[in-house]
């Protein structure tokens, strides 16, 4: 976390494994929770909360993908499709059976997990880029199926409107309601991932990533754990899809096309593979950067150029700056924003007595 850990000695395995390395960390987490649960939603305008909501959705999706790609080392370009499986499962349940959202959320996640495990079967034989292409095939097959099977997609338009989620008699519709709704799941996803990666399962994932033959020799069931990684990752994706559907009020097939899978891969690579904090940083970076670039250009662009030129320039320049900044950050720190953050932290750890 963000406090100085100078002079902390860990003498037991329990202490080393602890989520909180220092007692003060609990306070930090408490303050951060207070900030996100009270200060931000109660002070900021709904517009900023809508951006936060998009970030939250991206965070959950990126965490899921990072479990698979970052922790288990199985490259996947099918994340968007797994999201759509969750979304359409939930939308069908919500409209056909009128079931409540917690049921749909869970069902969407589980259905995505099942489909993800099936798509993950090739991972038992192939690795790296080959696996990436196999999951790409999964993405395209799922996309095609949803696009053409009207039983799933609910008609040629391939979009199903879902009612807003309800809590008792309260209908969650405003961005502020959604903010809390999504934040709960973000917390669950973060805590879940942190606990997963320090458990036996998580260590098995990491062993498979580092050297799968060695992992098999020390007694890890590769078959089971690789598919488990796909299932857990897809479960997250499915949940993301369901939350996205409830956020928008509609499941639409064009929201989960291949570009989305690439965006999520970009998030975890920029944020840092194999780290929880990295997934969060990546999701924030990829979602916020275009908005920040545009807002600053709207503010300053008019000083130098006429308005019509600025209007045409903003979207193009934004794309260029977005690409350039990604390259820039990756050159500065190939291990992602998470490592950059850790560098800053370790600099301050011994500050001001740098050697």
């Amino acid at each position, binding site marked *: 976390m963000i406090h100085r850990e100078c002079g902390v000695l860990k003498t037991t395995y329990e202490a080393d494994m602890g989520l909180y390395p220092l007692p003060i960390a609990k306070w930090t987490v408490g303050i951060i929770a207070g900030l996100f649960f009270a200060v931000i939603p109660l002070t900021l305008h709904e517009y900023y909360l809508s951006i936060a909501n998009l970030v939250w959705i991206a965070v959950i999706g990126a965490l899921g993908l990072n479990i698979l790609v970052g922790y288990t080392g199985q490259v996947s370009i099918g994340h968007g499709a797994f999201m759509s499986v969750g979304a359409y499962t939930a939308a069908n349940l919500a409209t056909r059976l009128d079931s409540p959202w917690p049921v749909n959320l869970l069902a969407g996640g589980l259905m995505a997990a099942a489909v993800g495990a099936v798509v993950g079967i090739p991972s038992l034989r192939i690795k790296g880029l080959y696996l990436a292409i196999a999951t790409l095939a999964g993405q395209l097959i799922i996309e095609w199926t949803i696009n053409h099977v009207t039983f799933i997609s609910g008609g040629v338009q391939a979009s199903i409107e879902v009612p807003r989620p309800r809590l008792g008699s309260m209908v969650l519709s405003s961005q502020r309601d959604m903010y809390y709704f999504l934040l709960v799941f973000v917390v669950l996803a973060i805590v879940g991932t942190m606990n997963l990666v320090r458990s036996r399962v998580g260590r098995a994932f990491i062993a498979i990533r580092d050297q799968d033959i060695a992992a098999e020799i020390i007694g890890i069931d590769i078959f089971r754990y690789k598919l488990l990684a796909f299932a857990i990752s897809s479960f997250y994706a499915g949940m993301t899809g369901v939350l996205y559907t409830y956020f928008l009020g509609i499941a*639409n097939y064009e929201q989960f096309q291949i570009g989305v899978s690439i965006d999520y891969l970009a998030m975890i690579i920029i944020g840092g593979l194999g780290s929880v904090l990295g997934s969060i940083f990546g999701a924030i970076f990829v979602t916020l950067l275009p908005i*920040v670039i545009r807002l600053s250009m709207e503010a300053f662009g008019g000083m130098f150029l006429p308005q019509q030129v600025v209007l045409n320039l903003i979207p193009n320049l934004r794309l260029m700056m977005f690409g350039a900044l990604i390259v820039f950050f990756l050159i500065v720190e190939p291990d992602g924003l998470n490592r950059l953050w850790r560098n800053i932290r370790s600099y301050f750890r011994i500050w001001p007595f740098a050697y």
Partner: protein
Amino acid sequence: MRHFGIGLLAALVAVMGALGALSPAAAQQEIVIGLQCDRTGPTQIVGTVLCPGFHDYIALVNSKGGVEGHKLRALEIDHEYKVPPAVESYERHKKEGAVTMAIYGTPQIYALAAKLTEDKIPGTSPGFGSAAAADGIRYPYIFPIAATYWSQGTAAVDFVKKQLGGSLKGKKIAFIFYDNPAGREPIEVLEDLAVIEGFQFKMFAVPPPGVEMGAQILDIAQRFRADFVIGHLFGGAPAVSIKEFKRVGYPLKKVVSFVWGSAEANIDAAGGFAVAEGYYTMQFAGVGSDYPVLNEIREMYKKEGKPAPKEMASTVYYNRGVLIAALHVEAIRNALKAKKDGKITGADVKAGFEKISNFTLGGLVPPLKVTPTDHEGGGLVQIWQVKGGKFEKVTDWYSAYTDVVAKHIKQAASK
């Protein structure tokens, strides 16, 4: 490296600070229109021309003193045809107090439909989006305001019928379409018409991104031997289809394209007007530069001492931008007329849209009649043909088989 990290942190803090200071104060009298654009995404050939047309019309209205004394401000946000930026841009427009929004893109209008209705802000989806949204009762805040894909389908069949001598009995009509939800939308209506008119109907799907359709077109020309082809393609695909029809020797004067495959940009990409000679296109806004409102825009630029924007040369999309802007302005004008204090809300503009009737802008806009139940305004189109290096008008504004379209809208509403 370490010092670098600190510098970076400082830069981030500075940007955040700049953002905090950034809260444009809107003038009291100003009326904000939210405009979503795609100047950089897959449909950029539309956005780069359509959006300048929108802005030019707003500027023209402002140069003449605004609407009922109120200045207009069109706030444009580019969403790259992606959904999350469209959500962000919707909320931004709402924050800026937009009373009406020009949404762009089928997935975007789907994603925003619930929000628009909850927040009571009218949003337009001209020429795309769900055809069922023409039902003003079910979708009170969505306004297609131009022929939907269903109306385009019926209009196309009617046109084909006239071209083939008044009867379609036993004729073969091929439908070549982009294989996505928007592409498949007209199928149900066309299948209905095949039964009513007794023609043989066959579909040919082109998978995205629509650059490979040699097999389908060869099939249409030589195996199916279609008497007429209805094309419904997007982006770069229409140009490819023109080239392929040319290659297999199928006459282009037996092809009619829906509204997104019918602009100068598509013809140019296919190799120019000489190549596409004979190709029929469907339009929901007037084509060409011979309209009084366009002369006024050129006049406005002249007064400012500037040349007319180069986008004006691409008349199909530019004119559509003008049409969309004009309908928004007209709705705002109706709202302001009804509410003299000038404090209009989205609900007022919705009512304003529903009062639009016989507003033609010298022929550039079809004589729409938008009502509280019909948000499409009649589904009027014109057919223009590529002839002698330019588009030539073949039919005037018309719609066809309105009963069939109405039946489908009713069916969709009962779902």
